[in-house]
C-alpha cells in the first residue's frame, strides 16, 4: 500500500515528491536497460562493425548472422575446399547445449524440490525437538563453507560413488574391490549432488513453521494419515513457497558453471553456461595463455575468420537468458503472492 496518503496527492509539494520518485525509478530503469540494449545491438551487428570506433548505437546493417552461426554451425568449408567439420570450440550447434541445460535444470528441480521439502517438513512438524535441532545443523551447516574446497573430493566421489578416495578400496582381507558406481560423464553427476539444498531447506522450513500445529493436530484426531495430511493440507497452503523454490532452483541450476564443467567432459553434454564461458574465455584468449602455457590458437583463428566475435557471444548470452526470463514471468505471480522467509531458528 502506498505510504503517501491518497488524500494529499493533489498538493503541489507532494506532487513534486512523487514526480521525483518516478523520475528516479525511470532513470534507474534506463540505466539498467543500457547494457541489455548494448547486448542486443552487438548481437545483430556484422563482424566488421563490432570493432568500429566510435561504436554504433544503431547498427548500420542489422543482421542475424550471429544467431544463424550459433544455431547452424557444426562445420564449414575451408578455403581449400576441405570440410572442416569440427571447430573444437563448438562442435555442436547451439540447441544441443540448450537441450543439455534444460535436462540438467529440470532433472535437478525434479529431484531437489521433493527431497528438500520432505526433509524440511519432517524437521518442522514431525521430528522430536532434540533430534530436529541436531539434524537442522546437519542440514544447513554446509551452507557456510565455500564449496570450492570440496571440489576434488566430490569429483573423486562421482567417479566411484560412494568412495571419495583416489581409488576404490578393497574389501578387508580380500582382493576384491567394493562395488562402486561411476556417475562421471552422465547428467546424474550434476543432478544428484544438487539433490539437497540447504538454502531451499531454510525457505521451506521457514514456511512450514508458520503453519499452525493446531490444524495438523485436528486432522490427526480426525484420523487422517500423515501422508494425506501432507497432501491434502500442507501442499495446498504451501503453493507460493514451492513456486519460489522452483524459481530459485531453476535459476541456480541454469546458471551453474563450475560443477558441470568439472564432471561433464564430453562436449555433447555441456550446458549453455559452460559453453558460453568457454567461448568467452577463448575469445579473449584467457585460456592457457594466462600463464604463458601453450594453447591451440588455431581455433581462435578459425573463429575470427568466420566473422564471429563479440556479436556471437552476445547472441549466445541472449539465447541463454531467454529461459530465465520466461521462468520469471511464469513464476512472478506466485512469487508475489507469498514468500515468507524465516531465518535460522
Amino acid at each position, binding site marked *: 500500500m502506498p505510504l503517501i496518503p491518497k488524500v494529499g496527492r493533489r498538493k503541489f509539494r507532494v506532487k513534486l515528491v512523487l514526480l521525483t520518485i518516478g523520475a528516479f525509478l525511470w532513470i534507474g530503469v534506463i540505466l539498467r536497460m543500457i547494457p541489455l540494449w548494448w547486448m542486443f545491438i552487438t548481437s545483430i551487428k556484422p563482424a566488421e562493425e563490432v570493432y568500429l570506433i566510435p561504436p554504433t548505437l544503431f547498427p548500420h546493417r542489422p543482421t542475424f548472422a550471429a544467431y544463424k552461426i550459433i544455431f547452424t554451425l557444426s562445420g564449414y568449408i575451408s578455403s581449400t575446399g576441405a570440410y572442416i567439420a569440427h571447430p573444437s570450440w563448438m562442435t555442436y550447434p547451439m540447441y544441443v547445449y540448450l537441450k543439455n541445460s534444460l535436462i540438467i535444470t529440470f532433472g535437478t528441480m525434479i529431484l531437489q524440490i521433493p527431497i528438500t521439502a520432505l526433509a524440511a517438513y519432517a524437521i518442522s512438524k514431525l521430528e522430536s525437538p532434540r533430534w530436529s535441532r541436531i539434524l537442522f545443523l546437519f542440514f544447513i551447516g554446509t551452507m557456510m563453507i565455500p564449496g570450492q574446497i570440496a571440489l576434488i573430493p566430490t569429483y573423486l566421489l562421482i567417479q566411484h560413488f560412494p568412495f571419495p578416495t583416489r581409488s576404490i578400496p578393497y574389501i578387508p582381507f580380500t582382493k576384491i574391490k567394493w562395488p562402486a558406481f561411476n556417475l562421471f560423464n552422465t547428467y546424474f553427476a550434476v543432478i544428484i549432488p544438487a539433490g539437497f539444498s540447504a538454502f531451499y531447506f531454510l525457505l521451506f522450513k521457514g514456511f512450514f513453521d508458520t503453519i499452525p500445529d493446531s490444524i495438523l493436530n485436528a486432522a490427526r484426531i480426525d484420523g487422517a494419515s500423515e501422508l494425506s495430511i501432507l497432501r491434502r493440507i500442507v501442499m495446498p497452503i504451501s503453493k507460493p513457497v514451492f513456486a519460489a523454490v522452483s524459481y530459485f532452483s531453476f535459476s541456480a541450476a541454469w546458471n551453474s558453471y563450475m560443477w558441470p564443467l568439472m564432471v561433464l567432459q564430453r562436449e555433447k553434454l555441456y550446458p549453455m553456461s559452460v559453453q558460453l564461458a568457454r567461448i568467452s574465455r577463448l575469445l579473449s584468449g584467457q585460456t592457457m595463455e594466462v600463464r604463458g602455457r601453450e594453447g591451440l590458437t588455431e581455433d581462435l583463428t578459425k573463429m575470427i575468420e568466420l566473422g564471429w566475435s563479440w556479436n556471437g557471444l552476445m547472441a549466445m548470452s541472449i539465447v541463454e537468458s531467454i529461459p530465465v526470463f520466461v521462468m520469471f514471468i511464469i513464476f512472478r505471480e506466485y512469487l508475489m503472492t507469498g514468500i515468507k522467509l524465516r*531465518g535460522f531458528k
Partner: protein
Amino acid sequence: MKKIAGKESQKRKSRLAKIFMSPAILIQFFFGWLPIGMAFAVCLFHYHILKPEEYVGLANFQDLFADPLTFQVFKNTFIYTGMRLAIFLLPVVVSILLMEMNKSTIRIMMYLWFFPIASTASIVIWKWMYNTEYGLLNSILMSLGLPTLRWLNDPRLVIFCLILPGILMYGPGLIYLATLQSIPDELYEAAELEGAGFWSKVWHITLPRMRPVLAMMLLLSIIESMSVFSQPWILTHGGPNNASMMVVMRIVDLAIYSMRYGKGTALAIILFAILMVIIIIQRKYFKEDIDR
C-alpha cells in the same frame, strides 16, 4: 494415559520423519559433509595426485601467513563485500518507492527493474561494456568530452567494476515487493490516524516488518560475496597486480592451478573461520523476529 499416547504418536511421527528425511540425509552426508571432511583433513598434508601425501603439520598455514598476498586477498574480499552491502539496500529502496506508483506502473516497472539475466551472460556483457577500446562506457565518456577511464585495467577502479554485473543478475527485489505487499494495510492506516509522516511510517512499520527477510538476505549476501568467484574469474582473472584477486579465486588458484591442494584448503579453512565469526556477530546484533 494421554501423556503416553502423545509419546506414542511422537514416536510414530519420528519414525515417519526419518523416512521422509532419509534421502536428504544421504545426499547431504555423501555430497555435503564427506567431501568437506576429507578436504579439511588435507590441510595438514602436501597432497599429490598420484604420489602418497606427506604430513607437514602447520607448514601450509605458515606459508600462508608469511605471504602478503593472503592479507591482500582478504582485504579485496572485504572491500567487495562492503560494496555488495551498500548495493544490498538498492532493491529495498526501489521496492519501497515502487509502492508509491500506481498499479499499472508497478507492474511494468517490476519487470524492468527486477527481471533477471543468466549469470554468465551478465558477466560477459559487462566484460564487453568495460572494453577500453570498443566498449560502450568509454565511448560514452568520449562523446561527452570527458577523459576515458581504464576500467578493469586500473588497480584502484577494478574492484568497483566487479560489482556491476551483480545488478543485472537476479536481484532479490521480488522478495522485498512480496514482503511489502504482505504488510497489513491497517497498520499504516492506524499510523496515519496518529499523524505519522512518510519517514516515520517507513522507520516504524515497514522496516521492522521486513526485518526477518532483510536479515536472511543480508546473511546470504555476506556469504555469497565473501566467496565470490565467477565475476573476477571471467572478468579480470585477478586483475592488475592482484588488485581483484578474491579469496576463493586464490583458493582455486592454489589448489588447482598451482597444485598446492593442502595450501588451498588451509586458506579455505581460514575463510571458513572468518565467515563463522561474521555470522555469529550478525546473528547476535541483527535478530530476525520482531514478534519475539
